[in-house]
């Protein structure tokens, strides 16, 4: 362990460990002792972890800014003398940022869950799983090597699986968690391949080593022996597959909307604020590697931009409140990816913008989800068509929700405005004008669907009077996190973010921090963006503030298109079709036939032959001790005779006598069996 001289940073390994202990204690020992001990312990663990991480953050951002610290490092696996898998704690600006985000949001969501999950039979299990997730996520963030990150990556997947399938007796939840697991596993396969490729050719797993220019140069020059492709773009894209899976980028996005089957705090924590940004984080972590290859960056950018637009379009048509938010998350994640994609080593504004947006998004999206949870808690329904006019029964929720909506829509003084503006600026600066246009469009769409959601839920008029009458404000444990989260949603944009977060090891690339700073707002970009946002809000106001037939009419007018969008472009169905009709029918079925008829068949044949033979032979096996004993003794006698005097006349005589004797006994036994045959049959009949 190398001491950095800073207490909190030195003890940063405690940050993931505490939630893990919490998980162990809550999961193993307080399962039966009610709600209060479980939630208290879990919150205690995560709270302590949060305090530690804030301490570390303070230490880092005041004293060590821009440095990469390794407070803990040990050798875990030695594949070969040169290829060593290390584990440890890596501290640089993005990991510190992420642990701040993760612990804080996680803590708030723990507090929120206390109220939200009240009365649920799986209450302690829920908190145990939340703790496990927090542990995994923090471990992921603090990972020192790509191997370690992979381990925590999978742990995150497992805890996500557990939490999505929390209502395990609900078939849709089970299906959702399976889907999430399978899709992310599938993506992780790419990650695994990528990391193996990197590790094999780069001869190391440590991030610091991998992102150093020497290694990147080395990787660039290496070519795969078989395909003749350069290792770098291939590994970058493979690793990006994993990141895309976790961050639900376009072809692998299908699990995220379904994952909303889990409890709402889970959606807020995992599928909005933390886990899904793991992909973004991974790309950011390996950014120098991506920056070195055009193909990698292009992939990140294009897929990000497409996902962002694609999800935003879908979100405009959905009615499930959580689904809208889920697609919104998709869209925003695409935004972040896009931002990473437009950044380069020379022009790393996109990187900072991505991280900035990640942070602000974590705040307001968590706030949105928690608000949605509060709404669901109040009306016991997910469907926006059942809601309406909820601003009066849920004043706090309404206020915080509005703040979040404004933030995500990019209305000027709020946090979303700044981060989004930075992304747009980055795209503009990177001269990716198409992407810039797409991002602009998405900004407008975002504002539109968010306010569609907001108006349908809180304004309009109550459609379901029964639910409306029973709706009431959530308890303090739920509204408190809302209020807390509303504060950064408003003010986070004012933080000079780029001062704190930028690409690590800048010195290597000869870029001074000063270049990066996003001085003020470029109103040529920010103005239209804000205008787009306001336009979206206005459109939503027109269509949804008062209930009218216009949305229906529009939907009718665009008939097939609306249907296409409403059904999420039939991506799920495509997958299903592909797996069922193509893979199952044309690949699996022949294999199955072969397996059943040729492989199994041969075994069956052998078994049947043996059975037949056995049936013939088994009459000599009486199951009686003394018979066996007799045979063994007879055999011993014969062997004894033969071994003793292999050549002598006497020996042979004796041996043959014994052999004859055995033969006689065998025949006798056989005859006996033949005579007694009816008896076992009778017994079988009796049984």
């Amino acid at each position: 362990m190398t001491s950095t001289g800073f207490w909190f940073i030195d003890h940063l390994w405690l940050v993931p460990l505490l939630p893990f202990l919490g998980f162990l204690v809550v999961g193993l020992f307080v399962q039966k002792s009610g709600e209060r001990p479980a939630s208290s312990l879990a919150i205690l663990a995560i709270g302590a972890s949060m305090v530690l991480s804030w301490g570390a953050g303070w230490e880092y951002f005041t004293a060590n800014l821009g440095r990469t610290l390794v407070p803990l490092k040990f050798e875990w696996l030695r594949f070969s003398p040169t290829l060593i898998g290390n584990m440890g704690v890596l501290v640089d600006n993005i990991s510190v940022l992420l642990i701040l985000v993760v612990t804080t949001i996680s803590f708030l969501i723990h507090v929120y869950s206390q109220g939200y999950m009240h009365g649920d039979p799986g209450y302690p299990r829920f908190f145990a799983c939340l703790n496990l997730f927090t542990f995994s996520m923090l471990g992921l963030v603090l990972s020192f090597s790509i191997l370690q990150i992979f381990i925590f990556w999978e742990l995150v997947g497992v805890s996500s699986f557990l939490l999505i399938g929390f209502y395990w007796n609900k078939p849709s939840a089970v299906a959702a968690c399976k889907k999430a697991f399978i899709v992310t596993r599938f993506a992780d396969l790419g990650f695994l391949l990528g990391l193996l490729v990197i590790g094999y050719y780069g001869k190391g797993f440590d991030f610091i080593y991998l992102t150093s220019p020497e290694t990147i140069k080395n990787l660039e020059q290496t070519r795969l022996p078989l395909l003749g492709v350069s290792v770098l773009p291939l590994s970058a894209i493979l690793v990006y597959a994993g990141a895309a899976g976790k961050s639900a980028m376009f072809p692998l996005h299908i699990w995220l909307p379904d994952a909303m089957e889990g409890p709402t705090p889970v959606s807020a924590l995992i599928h909005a604020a933390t886990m899904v940004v793991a992909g973004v984080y991974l790309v950011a972590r390996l950014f120098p590697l991506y920056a070195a290859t055009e193909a990698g960056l292009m992939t990140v950018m294009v897929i990000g931009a497409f996902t962002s637009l694609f999800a935003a379009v879908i979100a405009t048509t959905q009615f499930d409140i959580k689904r809208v938010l889920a697609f919104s998350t998709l869209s925003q994640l695409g935004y972040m990816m896009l931002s990473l994609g437009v950044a380069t080593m020379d022009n790393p504004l996109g990187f900072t913008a991505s991280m900035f947006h990640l942070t602000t998004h974590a705040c307001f999206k968590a706030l949105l989800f928690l608000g949605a949870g509060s709404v669901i808690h109040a009306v016991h329904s997910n469907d926006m068509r059942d809601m309406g006019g909820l601003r009066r029964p849920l004043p706090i929720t309404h206020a915080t929700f509005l703040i979040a909506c404004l933030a995500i829509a990019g209305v000027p003084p709020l946090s979303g405005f700044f981060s989004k503006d930075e992304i747009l600026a980055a795209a503009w600066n990177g001269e990716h004008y198409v992407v810039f246009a797409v991002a602009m469009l998405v900004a407008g769409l975002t504002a539109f669907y968010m306010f569609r959601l907001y108006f349908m839920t809180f304004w309009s008029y109550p459609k379901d009077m029964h639910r409306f009458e029973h709706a009431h404000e959530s308890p303090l444990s739920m509204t408190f996190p809302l209020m807390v989260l509303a504060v950064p949603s408003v003010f986070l944009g004012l933080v000079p973010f780029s001062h704190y977060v930028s690409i690590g090891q800048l010195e290597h690339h000869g870029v001074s921090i000063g270049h990066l700073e996003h001085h003020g707002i470029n109103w040529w970009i920010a103005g239209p963006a804000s205008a787009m946002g306001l336009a979206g809000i206005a459109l939503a106001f027109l269509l949804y503030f008062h209930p009218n037939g216009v949305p229906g009419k529009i939907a009718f007018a665009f008939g097939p298109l609306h249907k296409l969008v409403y059904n999420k472009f039939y991506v799920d169905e495509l997958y299903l079709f592909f797996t069922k009709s193509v893979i199952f029918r044309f690949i699996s079925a022949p294999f199955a036939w072969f397996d059943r008829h040729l492989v199994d068949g041969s075994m069956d044949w052998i078994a049947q032959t043996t059975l037949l033979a056995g049936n013939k032979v088994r009459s000599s096996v009486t199951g009686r001790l003394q018979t066996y004993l007799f045979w063994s003794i007879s055999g011993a006698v014969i062997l004894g005779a033969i071994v003793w005097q292999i050549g002598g006349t006497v020996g042979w005589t004796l041996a043959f006598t014994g052999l004859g004797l055995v033969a006689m006994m065998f025949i006798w036994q056989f005859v006996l069996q033949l005579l007694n045959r009816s008896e076992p049959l009778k017994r079988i009949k009796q049984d």
Partner: protein
Amino acid sequence: MMANVFFYILAAFILYSALFVVSAHNLFRSAIGLIAVLLGVAGMYLLMDAQFLSAVQIMVYVGGIVVLIVFVVLLVADVTEKTFQKADRWRKLSAGFVLAVFFGITVWALDSHSFTSASQNAQAASVKDYGRALLSTEKEGFILPFEVISLVLVAALIGAITIAGQTQAPVNGQKELP
């Protein structure tokens, strides 16, 4: 001379008792025969200057194992083999024949081998020698088998208790008397 006489008397006694063991229809009588055999064998040990073995034989075998067997004989209801079908004559004859052949081979083998004594005029083993041999960790020592045997015994005892100890506790008023 004396020893020879004793040997033949003992041998006859043991063999007669052994016959008793294997042929008596009453298990209890078999057990008596077994005791006689064991005592006779203890006598043979004495003839061969193995007093300690003789004492152990009587103490453990007669005093422990056979009493255990007798206990079980008393515990299980059918002491006599009356209820059993008689072991069929074929079985007996064939067994007798095989064993006769076996015995013939053994005797012939013994006869055709001349034993030469490795050490002459040595002292008979005393109890101390046994102790040293059993607990010695040297090359000639038997500490490992000794420990293994101890373990086996413990395991056997625990096993026996678990197997045999699963008895239904008598319940008050389980079944009314006639």
